[in-house]
């Protein structure tokens, strides 16, 4: 993470545009410009700026936004984080709920109409741009049927339904591609497991199909699937960045894109860092889950 944040800091100093000029618009006199540069600490050498920023980072201080209200970046991010987390969580649940049964059915009914159908759906899900799916969902469920709100976000504290109804469409938009990847992986992994000797042994013990699948096949098939889930988290995060912008949800993705538009360095830095931290952390959780799924793996 240290290396990651260093890279993030120095990369953004390469931005060609001049944020000071953008902030002062046309009205800025040279004196006002000087004062502003000094206030933001931009007159100091780059390396000092870096250590100040990094020191702050360690204390949870991401600096202050240099655009508009000059809010602390950590406030902006903390405001956005629950929205993105809710979205990612719900997308993940939706993806798993679709992918696990679809993957198992495809594997156990290999080369049947169901398998072909799921495989085709998976391909389509993988090929659809998530923002387009988001727009399609808005057209159908918000604009025409008017069942669900088209934009915005309600916190969970406002009640489950307001929260859920605002998040369900974006979550489907994000979760679809994710579920396609997982379903495909579950299928191929299950197919391998089903040929294993212990499956034949278990079947010869007279266990029911249900027990056979859920107790013997699925846990063993989950190990490679977990790896893919970890990698595919990237998709979930990118999806959230784009789809939040479609649904005007002020999560990390929207904060990031607005930060870029406003040339608000500290906000962009903070958002990219937090998004990457989330990605790294979720992969760490996946690593730890290996041990849960496969008792042979132990972390000492």
């Amino acid at each position: 993470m240290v290396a990651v944040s260093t890279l993030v800091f120095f990369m953004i100093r390469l931005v060609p545009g001049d944020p000071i000029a953008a902030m002062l618009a046309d009205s800025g006199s040279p004196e006002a410009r000087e004062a502003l540069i000094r206030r933001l600490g931009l007159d100091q050498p780059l390396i000092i700026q870096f250590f100040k920023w990094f020191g702050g980072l360690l204390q949870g201080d991401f600096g202050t936004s240099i655009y508009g209200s000059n809010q602390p970046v950590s406030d902006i991010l903390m405001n956005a984080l629950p929205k993105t987390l809710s979205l990612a969580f719900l997308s993940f649940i939706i993806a798993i709920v679709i992918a696990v049964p679809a993957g198992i059915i495809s594997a156990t009914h290999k080369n049947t109409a169901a398998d072909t159908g799921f495989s085709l759906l998976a391909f389509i899900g993988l090929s659809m741009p998530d923002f387009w799916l988001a727009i399609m969902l808005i057209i159908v469920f918000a604009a025409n049927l008017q069942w669900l709100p088209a934009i915005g976000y309600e916190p969970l504290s406002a009640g489950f339904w307001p929260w859920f109804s605002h998040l369900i469409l974006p979550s489907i938009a994000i979760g679809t591609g994710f579920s396609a990847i997982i379903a495909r992986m579950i299928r191929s992994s299950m197919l391998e497991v089903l040929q294993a000797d212990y499956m034949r042994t278990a079947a010869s013990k007279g266990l029911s199909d249900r027990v056979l699948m859920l107790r013997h096949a699925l846990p063993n098939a989950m190990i490679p699937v977990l790896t893919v889930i970890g990698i595919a988290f990237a998709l979930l995060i990118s999806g959230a960045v784009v789809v939040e912008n479609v649904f005007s949800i002020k999560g990390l993705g929207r904060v990031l894109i607005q930060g870029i538009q406003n040339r608000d360095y500290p906000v962009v830095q903070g958002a990219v860092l937090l998004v990457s931290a989330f990605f790294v952390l979720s992969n760490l959780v996946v690593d730890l889950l290996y041990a849960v799924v496969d008792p042979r793996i132990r972390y000492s």
Partner: protein
Amino acid sequence: MMSDTAFNPAAEAEAPPKRRSRFRAVFSKDRKAQFGLVVLGLFILGAFLAPFLAPYDPNEMTLNMMSGPSGDNVLGTDDLGRDLFSRILWGTQISLFVGVATVALALFFGVLLGVLAGYYGGWIDMVIMRYIDLQWAFPNFIIAVYLVAVFGTGLLNVIVAIALAFLDDFARIARSMVLTLKQEQYIDAAKVQGFSDFRIMMRHILPNAMAPIIVQATVSVSYAILGEASLSFLGLGVSSDTPTWGLILSDGRSFISRAWWLGVFPGLAIMLVVLSINFIGDALRDALDVRESDV
């Protein structure tokens, strides 16, 4: 997979025709791949012939605004009276170009890094892998967004940004292939014969490492096209006056409740192209015998 043929010069000589017939076998049976080839072929044709096929200038504004699909405007017009079909057709050029150019760039530099790291090992490997691991900490799309934010929008920047984001995937695959192939006896044989490192890498290692790289490249083209569309959609794309699919969608987004065609058709174009490439990639995976876990 190819390595076992290398012990036997006769088998190596036969390999190309065998592989070609395997391609034919897979592609003649796989209906999805056939669909992919046909649809992608049509889009490529459309991209090249856009100047002749497009019924209108893609940026020409008319008073015929927001009219639905009709005989005059097959896919309708947008809020400025521009013909949607012509815009999508021209957009094909950008999408396909970005897809191919990006992957060519990522492939060249990624494979170069991967082969160097895998072949030489030691500190070269360490430095390259440190960087690759560092890049791994960021989701690809976030890297692309960040790079465009840093270097600005525009065709070249978008291509470089997405290519850089994909670099680590190719480097990783190339490196692991090289590490496996390095153990082969024919590499030792080549070294004993006094061939240069460059020659061994180019003539002996790379050709045998190509299968997973080709599959990864195909898949990456589809991701690159999706990535470009997403960037354009977020206003971080090629430019605001070039009609790209993502931009057309982003422009039309505010009007979708009154003009559904502005939302439906550009996305359908993206989906069809990406789907075709994915179908082809899947068939290539079968034909080249690459395991899903390798890529």
